[in-house]
């Protein structure tokens, strides 16, 4: 009897089954933290001027949401109810500090530019939101997958917005000049690229541009999937 019971249990919970896939995919599309839950808008406005920065930020947030979900899920039974939030905050702050120290050692110039925003991951609503909504009530492995999914969902939007802003604001993608002239075209006119008629649009570089690009993404997503319209 006992043997059968364990077999059933194993069949019921494979390591990466339908549920896990749903946890991973959902936040990237139909339950996206930025466009559907409308969380984490603050940093989405600030760090989306360049694709490189957005990628670093996406990796950092994914790491923090995944690891903090995992840690809080492990701790959830022994965690004193009175100081639940404080323990969660300590876990998040600890992980964010680790990320910042690692980035400072790995790539100093990017750390110099992002350090303010990396620190602000502590207060990123997505991280706390997932801890309270998911990790406090679920097993570690699923919490971890949920954290990875939400981090990626945030990261995907960040990178899409950054790609639009960098392409139209500076004419480049991830640092490579694609359309328009190089920034020093006034000095060196021989360095024209192919679409040299394009003038970089400074509006795309200022934070307001992120707002209307995110709004456009929300609009497109909701017009394609009517179920989302009255969700939030």
């Amino acid at each position, binding site marked *: 009897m006992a043997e059968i019971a364990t077999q059933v249990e194993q069949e019921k919970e494979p390591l990466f089954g339908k549920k896990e896939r749903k946890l991973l995919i959902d936040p990237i599309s139909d339950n996206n933290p930025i466009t559907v839950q409308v969380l984490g808008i603050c940093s989405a406005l600030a760090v989306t001027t360049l694709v490189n920065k957005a990628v670093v930020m996406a990796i950092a947030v994914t790491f923090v949401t995944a690891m903090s979900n995992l840690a809080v899920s492990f701790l959830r039974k022994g965690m004193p109810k009175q100081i639940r939030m404080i323990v969660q905050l300590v876990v998040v702050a600890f992980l964010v500090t680790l990320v910042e120290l690692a980035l400072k050692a790995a790539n100093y110039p990017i750390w110099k530019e992002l350090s303010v925003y990396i620190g602000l991951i502590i207060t990123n609503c997505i991280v706390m939101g997932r801890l309270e909504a998911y990790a406090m009530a679920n097993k570690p492995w699923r919490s971890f997958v949920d954290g990875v999914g939400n981090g990626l969902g945030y990261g995907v939007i960040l990178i899409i917005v950054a790609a639009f802003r960098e392409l139209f604001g500076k004419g480049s993608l991830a640092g490579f000049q694609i359309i328009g002239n190089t920034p*020093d075209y006034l000095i060196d006119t021989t360095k024209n690229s192919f679409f040299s008629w394009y003038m970089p649009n400074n509006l795309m570089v200022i934070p307001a541009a992120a707002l209307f690009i995110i709004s456009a993404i929300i609009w497109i997503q909701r017009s394609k999937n009517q179920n989302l319209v009255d969700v939030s």
Partner: protein
Amino acid sequence: MQSNNYVTIYTVIMTLVVSVVLAVVVSGLKPIHDDNAAVFKKREIFKAVKGYLSGDLDKMTDKEVLALFDKSIKQVVIDGNGKPVEGEKAENLDMAQEEKKPIADRHYPVFSYDSDKGTFYLVSVRGNGLWDKIWGTIALKDDFNTIAGASFGHVGETPGLGAEISDNPTFPKQFEGKTIKDDGKYVSVAVVKGGIKKPAHQVDAITGATITSNGVTEMLDRGLKVYLPYFESLKK
């Protein structure tokens, strides 16, 4: 609800674990952080004389930057009266810390870069932008009047507006060839809106970033002035 004793012990253990791990990581990574910071600072200094370097600064490795710095940069720290200060290294001087001291006690760094195209004197200036501090490195030719190059940095100016002082290479490029003296009298270099009237001492401001532009003007006027007595003593 857990008992108070449980909560207290839980908190103490949690705090201890977190702080010990962080302390170990910080002290373990400190040498790497310090090296990175030193390379970053030296790159910032070289940026001001970018046009006079033999290679492309962005393509130089960290090792090459350090080697070039050791080989061709001489450094001296001066006080407010332009007298050299013994026993201090300019590369270790932190302008942000100097700013907190009373004006009379402040020290300033001067780097001289010897290249085959002449000697350049690089000085640091620091001032206020719209949101936070801005700073710059200005390279002067050995007549102590003509600007050979400039580079700027900032903490948090608006991307696309004030941040253009460092993001857009055309802004610092404008300073090349400007002179800080008019008939021997110190006039600095001003960032002006709506048309340059004195091409030798003025550069074009950034559209939409009036306060950052004015901050650069003020920073240069106040910042370069303190180096003048030292330059006078070098001329003799």
